[in-house]
């Protein structure tokens, strides 16, 4: 009996290998490695419908996608890499995993500060990491800049996400590029001095602000938009800091064509489609992110929050200084 089971298992395992060999993508398919984890992506579906090219998506975290791409090397089945943070795209490009794409459409649709200077990756959607406040407890004129959150008046009233998460690492990285490490260190020390409550999730942070556990926090705009869309009386609103200075810190969710893509032409077509007004509008509507294409209007809910000055630092800085940002956080005790 056990021998039979053994043979059955061996046969099953061998069939897996055969399946793997047979699973190479055909000409009318694209394989996307993506760390976006939305259950539905209307923009992807629209591309498939318009061009007849089927899209297959493989989800994992950014670091894992990176390791996989690197280990697979020239035999990677992936055509496109999509990540949720510029730092990860920067890292992939640095390791030679992404190919440069010379496309007039992409250059026209995506502003220069939201794409790689060497055209290896392109931002598709934008999210702002901004100050959020409880509308019942805080008035907008009490807020001004990111640095001002370190003011003693916010002691015990500030909620922050932990510094292990990439959103805050990118924020610090952008600050380091703008202001240099010593100034950034001072700013973060200020935050730490207010004894912030550390919560490991933007949605939880927003709920904490609404419930009164803290009065101000830093969060990504799309999380807030989601909560406000569900309940318009949610007592938290965004504040756009540093409008006299550098502007609001933004990050991107972006895409690049892999260096050894088997369907390079289709992959470029896919990226161009994602940057086109049709797809950008779909992104804006579905996930409450800002479209990277400046000619496309954001979701009405976001538009209600007004226009704001965006930091036009090239977002590659988020990757370039991410390691330094993590170390800085360690040094000043920002957990």
């Amino acid at each position: 009996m056990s021998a039979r089971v053994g043979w059955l298992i061996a046969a099953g395992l061998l069939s897996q290998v055969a399946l793997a060999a047979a699973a190479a993508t055909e000409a009318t398919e694209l394989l996307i490695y993506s760390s976006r984890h939305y259950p539905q992506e209307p923009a992807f579906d629209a591309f498939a419908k318009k061009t007849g090219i089927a899209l297959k998506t493989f989800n994992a975290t950014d670091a894992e996608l990176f390791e996989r791409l690197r280990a697979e090397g020239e035999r990677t089945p992936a055509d496109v890499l999509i990540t949720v943070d510029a730092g990860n795209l920067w890292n992939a490009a640095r390791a030679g995993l992404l190919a440069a794409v010379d496309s007039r459409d992409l250059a026209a649709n995506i502003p220069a500060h939201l794409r790689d200077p060497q055209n290896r990756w392109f931002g598709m959607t934008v999210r702002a990491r901004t100050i959020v406040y409880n509308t019942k407890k805080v008035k907008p004129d009490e807020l001004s800049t990111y640095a001002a959150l370190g003011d003693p008046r916010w002691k015990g009233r500030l909620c922050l996400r932990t510094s292990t998460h990439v959103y805050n690492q990118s924020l610090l990285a952008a600050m380091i590029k703008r202001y240099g490490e010593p100034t950034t260190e001072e700013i973060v020390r200020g935050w730490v001095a207010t004894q912030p409550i550390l919560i490991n999730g933007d949605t939880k942070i927003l709920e904490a602000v609404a419930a009164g556990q803290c009065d101000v926090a830093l969060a990504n705009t799309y999380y807030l938009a989601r909560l406000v869309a569900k309940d318009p009386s949610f007592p938290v609103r965004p504040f756009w800091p540093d409008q006299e200075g550098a502007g609001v810190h933004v990050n991107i969710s972006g895409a690049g064509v892999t260096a050894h893509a088997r369907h390079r032409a289709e992959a470029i077509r896919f990226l161009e489609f994602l940057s086109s007004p049709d797809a950008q509008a779909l992104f804006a509507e579905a996930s409450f992110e800002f479209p990277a294409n400046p000619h496309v209007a954001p979701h009405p809910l976001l538009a209600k929050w007004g226009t704001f000055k965006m930091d036009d630092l090239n977002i590659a800085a988020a990757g370039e200084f991410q390691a330094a940002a993590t170390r800085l956080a360690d040094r000043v005790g920002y957990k």
Partner: protein
Amino acid sequence: MGSPAATVAASGSPTPRSRRSWLWTTAALGTAAVVAGPILAVGWSLTAPAWDIWAHLWRTQLLQLLLNTGQLLVGVGLGVLVLGTGLAWLVVTYEFPGRRLFEWALILPLALPAYVIGFVFLGLLDFTGPLQTGLRAVFGPGLRLPDLRSGWGVTLMMTLVFYPYVYTLARTALLEQAPETLESARCLGRTRVGAFVNVTLPLARPSLVAGMTLACMEALADFGTVATFGYRTLTEAIYRVWHGMFDRLAATQLAAVLLGVAFLLILVERASRGRARFTQSRRHGHPSSAILLRGFRAAAATGVCAAVLLVAFGLPVGQLLVWVIGTLRRDGLPEGFGGLLLNSLWLAAVSAVCAGALAVLLGYALRLEPSRLVVPAVRFAAMGYALPGAVIAVGVLLPLAWLDHVLARGLERALGIDAGMLLTGSALGLLFAYLVRFLAVSFYTVEASLTRIPRNFDEAARSLGAGAGRSLREVHLPLMRRGLLGAGALVFVDVMKEMPATLLLRPFGLNTLAIAVWQRTAESLWQEAAVPALAIVVAGLVPVALILRTGVPLADSATREAPTPARR
């Protein structure tokens, strides 16, 4: 070195060597070496230290990381030991209302993934959760309770999830103790408690310590819970360095430190066994009846069991059910749910069988010949349990990918076909990673079961002409049946819950329930994550029920006696 060697010394005569015990030893050494490969790679990474990262860690947090990790281990170790052993003793020795139910129900928390418990409890008990919101409605908005997001919170969570390891093993050990041993102790003057402490506990020690070691290694390897609670342990630092500083090499080196801690754990476990013998002269005596509790004591026993069950299982599952009903009403079942379930089930089943077979091979080879080579090789191979799944996954990915390139180049030259990545593109890499990660679970359980088989059984088999293989098939395996089923079931549940290695190594298209949970929790879609999470729990209940049945006395096939009347 380990109990086999000690047993040999104590019994006076060496284990009878069969002609082909060297075959067993070589096979064991070979498979242990292959399984230990990724773990070795982690240790090997220390040969090129990333000095600047280490200097940075030393300056900023290394000490705190080690202290936090140590505190977690001590807390979880003691917690599961006390809770697991206490509950097992209660349920085996006494009769009280609801005992039958609790006997099996107390294992249920094993089916819950630790990362699910974490976010469920935070959701319930956090500032914004229903409990505190309700309390604030009564006592005023200024009410501030101690934060669950701390070392104690994590320790409590992990104790609640991992105590079933000790509970299962302790219960089996207690059930298999010959009642005469205890009765003799009572006759010779020990009080009930004294007999428990001085006779029962030491006899059950290998099982207790094995369970504790498993729980501690799981605690070491866990990332989901510590990340949710914001508690800085070594594993959290591994991820921080890997994802945040883009430095996989330094992260691997931190994992090597983790290995060192695991190694210390194992040394402690070995040392605690000492040179004692743990077999008993007869495995089943006549049953003695359980002690009936009355009145206050009965109520207390029932109360304790009910409280643990409620907190560790009832509350989380209840919350999941609430979310599931809401999500199902709104969206229906997630797309491809049947496929997810099937994938989870078959991956778990195949891993359980392979892990069980491997554990038997290694355990039996050790029993035949506790050579100086095989013992450390096997112990080392079992350390995969202490490593985070993602680290093992990378350790498996790199050599397999290299092998894939070699194979593909060869096939291209020989047959002109473009095969792509064969091993990492199939489930084989993933299954291998599961083996590396979960060998400890099956091995410790099987080994605990093997040590209970007296040596003279082996000698008797030899004298009757059976070689090593035949006596394994006809003597040891039937006696080990419970342990084997238990080991397979534990691995099954663990693989169903596994997430990080699956995320990295799965071939495209092979998604599991755990992946579905991750996709949703990563986007803070807690309610939506409840459907696959509950499916994992429900699917895990079947093997959990199996683990329970392995504690029920079956016919004693070794002595071919008529089945003794069941104790229960």
